């Protein structure tokens, strides 16, 4: 197996593209986790809904060559709008309550969105076709690799750079970082922290929707697909460090590569390996590989 460089290369690419796809989704979660400190179980459901919205929009934009990309943007906007409504109507009334209530609120969303998908799109497996020009494979010298998955890698890096720039180089990003560190201080400086919470939740959910739309051609859409992805996002956020963007990037790569090579090393038990890694990181560095220790963990 290891004497076959082509296979190894393909697995490497599989790991990278899976990792980048996971990063697009989990970057939204890590943003929400870092600022709102809500264990948002609905993030997977938003991802799933994004995929389904993309399916419908692709059908609607059928004739346009840019149809798929418009559908991706549409999914992000739709999920952002949904998150806006949810935050304004419900979630914001729970901020002052125990963690547990917020967590269970997001679980209620999981239940409702799961059924919404079944009502709206049925229980059978759906698939979105590749955008035009990207259904083939690209010659990478060593081997051919599906063009769309290659593009996912590039988009993942672009999303990462874009978010990094936003968080670290803009005024809004500075406010987000401040909200992450000390809500009360920021509030006493006259900043409307509630608005920051709102927009972080909206942006994080829009990213989940976009992630679902982008993943749609590479995977099969089926009800229940949200349960696994949300746990994977948690694993990534934990490995990287709650709220750390670079950590989410690293965590996604580790998870993607572990998935790809775990299959080669210990087929069947690669999933055990992933949870074991989450356990180990939590025990050794609960604040994650790239996160900062909080009070009580120093």
């Amino acid at each position: 197996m290891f004497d076959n460089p082509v296979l190894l290369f393909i697995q490497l690419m599989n790991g990278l593209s899976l990792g980048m796809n996971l990063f697009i989704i989990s970057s939204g979660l890590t943003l929400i986790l870092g600022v709102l400190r809500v264990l948002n179980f609905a993030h997977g459901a938003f991802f799933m809904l994004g995929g389904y919205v993309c399916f419908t929009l692709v059908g609607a934009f059928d004739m346009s060559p840019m149809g798929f990309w418009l559908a991706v943007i549409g999914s992000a906007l739709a999920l952002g709008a949904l998150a806006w409504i949810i935050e304004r109507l419900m979630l914001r009334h729970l901020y002052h309550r125990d963690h547990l209530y917020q967590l269970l609120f997001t679980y209620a969303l999981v239940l409702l969105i799961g059924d919404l998908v079944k009502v709206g799109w049925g229980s059978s497996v759906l698939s979105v076709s590749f955008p035009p020009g990207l259904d083939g494979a690209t010659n990478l010298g060593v081997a051919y690799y599906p063009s769309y998955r290659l593009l996912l890698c590039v988009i993942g890096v672009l999303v990462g750079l874009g978010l990094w720039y936003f968080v670290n180089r803009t005024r809004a990003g500075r406010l987000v970082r401040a909200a992450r560190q000390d809500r009360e201080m920021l509030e006493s400086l006259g900043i409307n922290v509630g608005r920051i919470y709102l927009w972080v939740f909206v942006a994080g959910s829009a990213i989940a929707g976009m992630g679902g739309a982008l993943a749609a051609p590479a995977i099969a859409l089926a009800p229940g697909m949200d349960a696994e992805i949300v746990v994977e996002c948690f694993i990534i956020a934990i490995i990287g460090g709650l709220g750390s963007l670079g950590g989410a990037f690293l965590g996604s790569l580790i998870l993607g590569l572990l998935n790809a090579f775990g299959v080669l090393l210990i087929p069947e038990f690669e999933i055990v390996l992933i949870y074991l890694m989450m356990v180990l990181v939590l025990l050794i560095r609960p604040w994650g590989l790239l996160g900062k220790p909080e009070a009580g963990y120093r």
Partner: protein
Amino acid sequence: MNKSITGTALLVLLLALVPLAGSRYLIYLVTEIQIFALFALSFNLLLGYGGLISFGHAAWFSIGAYASAILLTTLGWPFLLAFPAAVAVTALAAALIGYFCVKLTEIYFSMLTLAFGQLVWAIAFKWVSVTGGDTGFIGVAVPEFLDSPVRFFYFSLCVVLLCATVLWVIVRSAYGMTLVATRENRNRAEFIGVNVRRVQLVAFTLAGTFAGVAGALFTVFNHSVFVETAWWSTSAEVMIMSILGGVGSFVGPVIGAAVLIFLDRTVTEYTQYWPSVMGVILLAVLFFMPTGIAGFLNRRRGGTRR
């Protein structure tokens, strides 16, 4: 005090009369409620009394379930040996894993319990030769004396009542008070010399053990074990039962389990959209009844919380 003893005695009497109604459906329903009531009671030792938000409680339920299935069927142990042994295995696993979990607090504690819970699921899912994997562990060798629904009903009633009594004694004991103290203020409890981690570890182990009893009962009830039981949504469900009933009172989780199981069985007959119904119930509880059904009733009666 006297009132609640009378109430409990009446409830037990009523439960004991259930099989006389002659409805097989009712017997099954109430047996299942008993089992999940114990599961929720065990969970609430952590959540309600210890303030520990565990997201991996399904692990103990399923370890108890698989252990009893394996001991009874694969190893062919007699029931009276296999049942306590399965509980002992769960207790040991809970103590071992709990040792690591109580090192962390808050969000990290929840995440670590989730990770261990999923680890248990992954092992149950992949270790096909032992657990049956995706198809489940089917055809558990149930002893003859429990092979009738009525007899199993009384057996599980006795076991659940015994466990509930032990749990009740535990939360009323000095230890139970100390556990509540660690929930209320960890630092102050530490200052007066409480070893918070050890108190939490004991709670974690006890909760895991009683969840294991519930799991072992569930195996005999179903004659099989399915891997879905170990998936994280089971942990979410037991949490919903506790919150719905009310984590602030001892009987709250029992009420929550009864209401949720009853509604599940009833609603599923009319629609496949039970998850939505559960979601709406959950929202209603979160926004309008934060202390759960028990807290709501208590307030109506003019009583105090806890």
